[in-house]
C-alpha cells in the first residue's frame, strides 16, 4: 500500500522523527490560513501518488499567504501523469544547511531490510549510488531481532558523516528502521532529511510503502490516517484490459489460481507459466536467451480446464503474440493433463492449430503420462523433467525467433 506524502509525514512524525509544521488541505482558502499560521515563505506541494511533481508544476513556492492560496488553487486543478491531487501540503520553506538521504528498503535477495544513508540528499539515491558510491552507507539488519542504534550509526558513518551530525542523525535513522519493522513497510524513505541552519534535523519529504499483507495488522494506523477500506492498496497502476480479464477469469472459478501481468511487456512470446517460483525463473530465462515475453503469468493450485483455457486465450489474444510457451517447474498438485487440455482448448476455440501455436510444453509432474498422450494427439512439442527450465525456455525462444527470421 502506498501513502501520500502528507500521510507519510504523519507516519514519520508518529515515529518520533522531527517534521516541519506542515498542513494538509483540499481547500485553497485553508491553504492561506495554514500559510498564515506558518508565518513565512511556504512551499505548496501537490499530493499525488506519482513522480515528476516538480517538473509538472505541482510544487510551487509562495512568499505570502495570498500567494499560497493562489498556488493551491492552481495545483488543485492540475492533473499530473493522469492523477488528480488528493489535496495540497503547505510546508514552511526551510532554511537548509545540508540535505541528507535516509531510507530503509526490503532487500528481496538478502531477505532482510536494508538501511541506506547518504550525505547527498534531495536527489535520487540510485543516482548518488552510481555517481558517488563513497557517499552512500548501507547495512542490512534482522527483521526478527531487536534493532540497536549502533547499527544505524555504522551506516551513517559509512557515508562519511562524523561528529555532531553523526550523533544527531543516529536516532533518526534508528527510528526509521523501527518504523519500517513495526509498520510492516516495504519502503520507508526520508528525502531530503534536512539539517537546518540551527543544527536541528527535520524530514522535508517522506515516502512510505506498506506491505499489502501487513495491512490487517496495521488497521489502527490506517484508520488514524483517515484511509478508508474502499481505497484498497492504491495499486501503482491502472490494470490493463489483459490484467483485468485474467483477474475476472480467476475470480469466476475457485479451482486453482491464475495471474497475468503485461504492463511493460511488449514482446511476441506469450507465457503460460508457473509453479513454485517457476514464473520468475522462466521469465528471466526467456529474456536472458534473447526472447521477448508478451506477458508475465502464474498458473497453479490445480486449476480447472476452463481456467487454464481462459488464461491461454487471453495471452494468445494479445497484440503480437502468435505462439505461447507453456512451462512450469515440476508440479505435484496441478495436473499436467488438465493444463494441457486447457491450453489446447484455447487454441482450438481461437481457430489456431495447437501444434503450431504452442512452441513448447514443459510441465512435468502429476499425471504427466496422461498429459503427454494429449500433447501427442495434437502434435505439440513437449519435454519432461530431463529438460531444464533454461533449456525449455531456449527451445521456445529459438522456435519463435526462427519463425520471425524466416
Amino acid at each position, binding site marked *: 500500500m502506498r501513502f501520500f506524502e502528507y500521510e507519510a509525514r504523519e507516519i514519520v512524525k508518529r515515529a518520533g522523527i522531527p517534521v516541519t509544521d506542515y498542513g494538509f488541505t483540499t481547500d485553497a482558502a485553508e491553504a492561506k490560513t495554514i500559510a498564515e499560521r506558518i508565518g513565512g515563505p511556504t512551499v505548496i506541494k501537490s499530493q499525488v501518488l506519482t513522480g515528476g511533481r516538480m517538473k509538472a508544476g505541482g510544487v510551487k513556492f509562495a512568499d505570502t499567504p495570498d500567494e499560497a492560496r493562489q498556488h493551491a488553487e492552481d495545483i488543485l486543478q492540475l492533473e499530473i501523469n493522469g492523477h488528480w491531487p488528493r489535496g495540497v501540503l503547505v510546508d514552511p520553506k526551510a532554511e537548509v544547511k545540508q540535505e541528507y538521504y535516509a531510507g530503509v528498503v526490503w532487500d528481496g535477495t538478502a531477505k532482510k531490510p536494508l538501511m541506506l544513508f547518504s550525505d547527498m540528499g534531495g536527489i535520487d539515491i540510485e543516482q548518488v549510488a552510481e555517481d558517488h558510491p563513497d557517499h552512500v552507507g548501507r547495512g542490512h539488519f534482522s527483521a526478527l531481532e531487536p534493532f540497536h542504534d549502533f547499527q544505524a550509526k555504522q551506516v551513517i558513518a559509512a557515508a562519511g558523516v562524523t561528529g555532531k551530525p553523526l550523533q544527531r542523525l543516529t536516532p533518526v535513522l534508528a527510528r526509521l528502521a523501527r518504523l519500517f519493522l513495526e509498520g510492516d513497510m516495504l519502503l520507508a524513505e526520508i528525502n531530503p532529511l534536512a539539517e537546518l541552519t540551527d543544527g536541528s534535523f527535520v524530514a522535508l519529504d517522506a515516502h512510505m510503502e506498506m506491505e499489502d499483507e501487513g495491512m490487517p495488522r496495521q488497521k489502527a494506523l490506517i484508520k488514524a490516517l483517515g484511509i478508508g477500506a474502499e481505497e484498497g492498496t492504491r495499486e501503482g497502476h491502472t490494470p490493463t484490459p489483459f490484467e483485468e480479464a485474467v483477474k475476472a477469469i480467476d475470480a469466476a472459478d475457485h479451482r486453482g489460481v491464475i495471474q497475468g501481468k503485461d504492463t511493460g511487456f511488449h514482446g511476441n512470446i506469450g507465457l503460460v507459466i508457473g509453479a513454485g517460483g517457476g514464473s520468475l525463473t522462466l521469465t528471466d530465462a526467456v529474456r536472458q536467451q534473447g526472447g521477448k515475453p508478451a506477458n508475465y503469468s502464474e498458473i497453479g493450485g490445480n486449476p*480447472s*480446464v476452463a481456467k487454464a483455457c481462459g488464461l491461454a486465450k487471453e495471452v494468445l489474444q494479445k497484440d503480437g503474440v502468435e505462439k505461447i510457451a507453456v512451462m512450469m517447474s515440476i508440479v505435484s498438485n496441478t495436473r499436467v493433463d*488438465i493444463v494441457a*487440455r486447457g491450453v489446447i*482448448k484455447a487454441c*482450438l476455440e481461437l481457430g489456431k492449430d495447437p501444434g503450431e501455436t504452442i512452441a513448447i510444453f514443459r510441465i512435468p509432474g502429476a499425471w504427466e503420462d*496422461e498429459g503427454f*498422450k*494429449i500433447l501427442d494427439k*495434437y502434435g505439440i512439442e513437449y519435454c519432461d523433467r530431463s529438460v531444464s527450465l533454461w533449456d525449455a525456455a531456449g527451445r521456445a525462444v529459438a522456435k519463435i525467433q526462427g519463425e520471425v527470421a524466416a
Partner: protein
Amino acid sequence: MKKDAIFIGVEVDDRVASDAAMGAKLDEVCPVNIFKGTESGVDIVEENIDECVLCGLCIDAAPAGTVKIHKLYSGEVLPA
C-alpha cells in the same frame, strides 16, 4: 446416451439415464458437475465434460458397465 467434448466423452446406459435415483447419485459423486440429476433420470452437462478428472467415482457409483468415460485423445475407455 453419449456426449463428447474435445477430450472426453461420457456414455451412460439408457437404464441409468432414465433412473432418477441413479441420476441423483451421479450428480452427488461427480466433483466437476458433469451429471445433473433430474426427475426423469440424469442429464450430461456438456460444458463440464472436459473438466473430467478421470476419478472414476461415477463408474463406481453406477452398476457395472453402465457408465463409461472415453478418452477421445487416446481411444482408451474407462473402465478398461
